[in-house]
């Protein structure tokens, strides 16, 4: 009954639609939701998905490739170059020490040195998919923890190529068919001498870089000029698939190639177009990937060897965690960032599936051990997100940066209590200005480095996730007058607003909104005071342009005030409409429709001409 593709698609989609909202509801990351969905529909619970789970896994790994392409797009080549030391240093240390220790561990357990080495390779790698997805969801990409995780993962992506290359050397038999997922086809270079292989690899990297400049961008321009939207989607997919194919041809990791391709295109004008086009594909494929991992957990193997598997499982996680903790210490990470890193990368990653099955084909591993290690891998991937939650809720508040610090009572005993959530670029400006008035806001932030610094500066700061009611309550929301939300991520903002509105409706909310869309949402949630990033500053810039062209500053000043006021009014009017109209599918189209509406409003109002105050010309005409 599991035969048809249609049925499989329905099973996976239904699993996702059912499980992910539940996971989200309990405050877990979507990754965990997908994994649980996979277990649920897998062969051992509902049995909707059978052995073909493995094939789906290979297919879904393409999601990881896309994710790395998208991450590459976010990284300026110059920044990438600056990261090289962390990548090699942290990544190298992590992989080398983990391999060394786990090699020893498996030797002690009585495995042959070749087997131990192969397994230790798999163990040293972490999951790019899980880690980066979690980082993105929590908005921690720009913290020390995020950057270090990314550096280590990138190094692993590079080193895995050499691992795959080294495996045949451990084998006594030549691989009859190399059927690892990254090289479904035959590796073109297998029969070439080593120096030619190296040359080919270098050439393909150069090919990607130059193709980015001289082939891909002109191609995208061509596609854009046709104004057929799906052509851009096709081009975007073509780029990622093409790079992956080229990489597989020369035996490199497609993920790495895609990342490189992304970096090359990071400065092109199509950056955002590519991002918005590929994002849904990536998300779906990644979801599929996590579900396939969940479905591939072989509970039969666990039942046969429960002691052995749980032993290895615990040993692997502890070992990886200890090494990560040490690496964090060597690179002088703060304790809580280090703890986040320790738990965040403690799983075995998706590359292990590739390495292990390749080693099996090479006769290095037997079937039993491979199955066992595959199960361990999938289990670590399921367990670490849970461990991360425990770490955040139980350990971090105690060690690392404390959620709060006791302060002398006279400071807290202020008449009007203001809570400021988020102390990034936006929040810090707000906080500094308030302080210049002697108003000491209670600050909530999720960056421990910032929190420590602010405490040194004498602010009252709480560390942690502001959408947790208990943290808000210990920050004193119960007797606060005003809560300022200066949060970057709209989802966090909405969650915070919803939470506070429900439980403490008397607290006045002053909320930062990134743009009109977020503002609409907030208006419809009943927020009165909304501050759009893209309003005042843009108008100010336009004023300066007009002033430079020779218009009088004071007139511009009045006109700007008027413009802002009417824009705010329009915002409130349009917010009501936006609720009734059906959702747009394409963001770009929605945006154009929005601009059209705004321009119509301006035209209708015509306020550029009706400012007749002090205009002697009018009186003069009247008197003549």
């Amino acid at each position, binding site marked *: 009954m599991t035969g048809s593709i249609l049925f499989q698609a329905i099973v996976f989609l239904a699993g996702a639609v059912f499980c992910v909202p539940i996971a989200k509801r309990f405050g877990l990351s979507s990754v965990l939701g997908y994994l649980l969905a996979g277990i649920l529909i897998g062969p051992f619970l509902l049995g909707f998905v059978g052995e073909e789970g493995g094939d789906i896994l290979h297919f879904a790994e393409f999601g990881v490739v896309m994710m790395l392409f998208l991450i590459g797009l976010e990284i300026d080549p110059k920044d990438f170059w600056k990261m090289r030391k962390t990548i090699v240093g942290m990544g190298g240390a992590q992989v080398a020490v983990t391999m060394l220790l786990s090699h020893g561990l498996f030797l002690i357990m009585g495995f042959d040195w070749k087997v131990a080495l192969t397994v230790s390779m798999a163990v040293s790698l972490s999951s790019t998919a899980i880690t980066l997805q979690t980082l993105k969801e929590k908005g921690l990409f720009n913290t020390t923890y995020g950057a270090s995780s990314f550096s280590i993962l990138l190094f692993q992506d590079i080193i895995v190529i050499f691992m795959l290359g080294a495996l045949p050397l451990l084998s006594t038999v030549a691989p009859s068919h190399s059927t690892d997922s990254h090289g479904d086809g035959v590796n073109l270079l297998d029969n070439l001498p080593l120096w030619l292989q190296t040359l080919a690899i270098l050439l393909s990297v150069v090919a990607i870089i130059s193709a980015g400049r001289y082939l891909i961008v002109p191609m995208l321009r061509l596609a854009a000029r046709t104004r057929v939207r799906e052509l851009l989607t096709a081009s975007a997919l073509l780029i990622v698939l093409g790079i992956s194919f080229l990489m597989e041809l020369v035996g490199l990791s497609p993920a790495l190639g895609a990342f490189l391709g992304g970096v090359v295109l990071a400065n092109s004008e199509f950056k955002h177009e590519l991002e918005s086009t590929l994002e849904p594909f990536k998300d779906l494929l990644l979801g599929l990937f996590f579900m396939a991992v969940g479905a591939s957990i072989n509970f039969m193997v666990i039942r046969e060897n429960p002691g052995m598997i749980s032993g290895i499982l615990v040993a692997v996680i502890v070992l990886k965690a200890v090494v990560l903790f040490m690496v964090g210490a060597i690179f002088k990470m703060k304790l809580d960032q280090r703890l986040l890193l320790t738990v965040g990368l403690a799983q075995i990653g998706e590359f292990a599936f590739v390495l292990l099955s390749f080693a099996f084909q090479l006769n290095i591993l037997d079937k039993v051990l491979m199955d066992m290690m595959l199960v361990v891998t999938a289990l670590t991937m399921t367990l670490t997100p849970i461990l991360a939650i425990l770490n955040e809720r139980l350990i971090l508040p105690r060690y690392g940066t404390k959620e709060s610090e006791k302060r002398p009572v006279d400071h807290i005993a202020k008449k009007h209590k203001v809570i400021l959530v988020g102390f990034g670029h936006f929040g810090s400006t707000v906080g500094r200005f308030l302080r210049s008035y002697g108003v000491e806001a209670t600050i909530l932030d999720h960056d421990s480095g910032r929190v420590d610094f602010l405490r040194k500066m004498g602010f009252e700061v709480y560390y942690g996730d502001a959408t947790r009611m208990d943290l808000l309550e210990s920050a004193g929301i119960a007797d606060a007058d005003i809560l300022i939300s200066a949060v970057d991520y709209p989802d966090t903002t909405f969650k915070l607003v919803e939470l506070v509105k429900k439980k403490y409706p008397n607290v006045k909310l002053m909320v930062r909104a990134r743009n009109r869309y977020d503002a609409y949402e907030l208006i419809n949630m009943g927020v009165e005071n909304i501050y759009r990033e893209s309003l005042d500053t843009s108008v100010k810039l336009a004023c300066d342009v007009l002033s430079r062209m020779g218009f009088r*500053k004071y*007139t511009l000043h009045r006109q700007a005030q008027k413009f802002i006021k009417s824009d705010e009014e329009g915002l409130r009017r349009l917010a009501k409409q936006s609720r009734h109209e059906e959702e747009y599918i394409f963001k770009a189209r929605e945006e154009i429709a929005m601009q059209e509406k705004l321009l119509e409003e301006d035209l209708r109002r015509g306020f550029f001409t009706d400012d007749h105050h*002090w205009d002697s010309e009018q009186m003069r005409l009247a*008197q003549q």
Partner: protein
Amino acid sequence: MKEVLIIFAHPKFEQSRTNKTLVQNVKSKQAVTFHDLYERYPDFDIDVDYEKQLLEEHEVIIWHHPFYWYSCPPLMKQWIDLVLEYGWAYGPEGNALAGKKVLQVITTGGSEKVYCAEGRNMYSVNQFLRPFEQTARLCGMKYLSPFAVMGTHRLSEKELENYATQYRQILTCLQNDQPIQSLKDCVFQNDLPELKNLN
């Protein structure tokens, strides 16, 4: 040659034919600093230290503004309120401006005829300008009889040109420290006999 500072306040300068012509004639004159308040402080955030420094560097101060509701535009009043500080411009030790000359240059829509006991504005322009006169006096400055361009709505281009030339000539007189009519001698600078001849 005495340095002249024109403190100019007009919220809608770009629409004022009269003031554009007047300003054009004196703006780039030698040893004249043209200081455009509404252009410099569109948000009314006056830089008091800078204003004081400007005042100190000049010996002749011109208050040039349209005559709105029998007074000056709000930024000019803001300027007076903020810049003429106690202890600096007036008060026991406030003598930074002592001895400087002040000339008020105003433009009015209504003609001279309506600014008198029989006209619809009841009082003369000089009477309306008493607060400014007294302000200058309190700061130890010499308040000259004002230069007024009146009935601007009906001025012909030729008449306007004449006024502009007069404005320029008055500034030249002030710069060269030539005797100029004080308030006691005449109502307006416009009444100076030598300027009259220009018409």
